[in-house]
């Protein structure tokens, strides 16, 4: 007898769970507040769920919260569920090369172009840019907009500098600037490589009162949200070599037939639309007083 009751109970539980989850929701057994059910229904009716789109992207787009913000609207408007893994640009492209992602959103133009040339991606489409800033302890160097002056001073005076050193887009950008200025940062004994993400590297620079090149978004967020007040300040900003272009690339379905190319194309079309470009331009303004990303889809960048 007891067994039978238990079975009935278990069955009832299953039905409740099922009804709670399913969109059609049998109202009698679900016993959910009616409002909620109809709310869910309305949402479900707006767009049909189509599936999951897997994106490999960089830590900066995730750390700033941009992707969470976009993913929610993307799901509502198109029915695709955007899932992303935030890694360095190097690993993100590697994931694309292995067919582990349907789409990549990264910021290292030359690597992206190589990715397309090798046949792993269809086309690189510029989406937006943000800019880099050099942060450092106040007073150690004069604030300005000329990266050459600052980097030369850091090298000559052997000022402490923390580099990502993890082959990420930001790391490549920093190394690229040193190379462009024909300076060798390794000559500076106080030049350290953290091998960690942007947030951890900023924390390290703050701890050691060192200079560090970071994207503005992560810097603003960390400065705003961290428990400890960061004691660094922006020392250099606005130099043309500090701009950082993001590109989106759909992984080639010819290379990997199983990738979700339909979803990838839907995302690219969506993210380049005027409406979404405007959303990107407004992201962060409320919280930080300035936009974190500047949309520029369609530009030749």
């Amino acid at each position, binding site marked *: 007898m007891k067994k039978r009751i238990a079975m009935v109970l278990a069955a009832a539980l299953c039905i409740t769970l099922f009804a709670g989850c399913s969109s059609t929701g049998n109202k009698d057994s679900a016993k959910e507040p009616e409002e909620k059910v109809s709310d869910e229904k309305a949402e479900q009716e707006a767009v049909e769920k189509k599936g999951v789109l897997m994106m490999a992207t960089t830590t900066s787009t995730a750390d700033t919260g941009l992707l969470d913000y976009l993913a929610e609207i993307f799901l509502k408007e198109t029915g695709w569920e955007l899932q992303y893994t935030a*890694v*360095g640009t*190097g*690993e993100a*492209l*590697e*994931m694309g090369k292995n067919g582990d992602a349907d789409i990549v959103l990264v910021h290292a133009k030359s690597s992206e172009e190589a990715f397309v040339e090798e046949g792993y991606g269809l086309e690189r489409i510029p989406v937006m840019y943000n800019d880099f800033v050099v942060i450092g302890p106040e007073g150690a160097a004069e604030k300005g907009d000329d990266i050459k002056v600052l980097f030369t001073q850091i090298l000559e005076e052997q000022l402490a500098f923390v580099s990502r*050193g*993890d*082959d*990420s887009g930001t790391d490549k950008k920093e190394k690229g600037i040193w190379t462009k200025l024909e300076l060798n940062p390794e000559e500076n004994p106080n030049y*350290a*490589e*953290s*091998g*960690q*993400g942007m947030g*951890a590297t900023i924390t*390290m620079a703050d*701890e*050691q*009162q060192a200079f560090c090149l970071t994207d503005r978004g992560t810097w603003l967020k960390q400065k705003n949200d961290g428990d*400890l007040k960061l004691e660094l300040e922006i020392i250099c900003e606005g130099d043309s070599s500090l701009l950082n272009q993001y590109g989106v690339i759909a992984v080639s379905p010819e290379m990997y037939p199983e990738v979700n190319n339909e979803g990838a194309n839907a995302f690219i079309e969506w993210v380049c639309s005027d409406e979404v470009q405007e959303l990107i331009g407004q992201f962060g303004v409320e919280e930080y007083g300035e936009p974190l990303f500047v949309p520029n889809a369609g530009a030749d960048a």
Partner: protein
Amino acid sequence: MNRIEALLSQVFTDAGTYDSIKVTFQMAFFSTGISSFLGIFWGLLLERIRFPGKGIVIRINRTLMGVPPVVVGLVVYLLIMRRGPLGSLSLLYTIPGMVIAQTLIITPIICGMIYSYAVKAAPGVRVFAKMMGASKRQTDLLLLKEMKNEIYFAIITGFGRSISEVGAVMLVGGNIKGYTRTMTTTISLLKSQGIFQEGVVLGILLLLMAFVLQCLTDFFRKDDNVNENY
């Protein structure tokens, strides 16, 4: 040796892999040394003395044996960061800082192991020593000698834990190339760069070291107890 080096340098890029092996051993040597000293001392002491609340202390120690390293890392980080209570010592992002964190992780493990061995071995040894009219000091020495194998085993377990740990070392050491980058944090970095082959090679090296350690333990055990069945 040179040939091996040449072979390895073919596989390893410039993520500071050589230095990371050196750093790993420096760190493991010191943290195991200190933890062994403290752990063995406290383990034996815990077995010998009685005091109210002993049960709680043992239970806490057992909990600490399984403490997530990253939690210890966080606590040590907060202690030694520039604005932390020990900030003036500038231990953050240094090997001594990593050794502190690891000592906190490994000491409870060694202490717990030694305690549970001692609980089994000590009564017999004491009865025997008393019968032979040994002094207190001689009794202690006899107990240490009797537990030799277990002590080796505890130390090697601690060493293995030390070289394989990544969470605390990453937080406290900061994975700075050439200074505090260990083998495990190198693997973590290589993975984030998408360089899997080198990571796997380094992982195999770590496994090999663990295997050699196990062989060493067996060697010490056999050396001493040819007739023991185990």
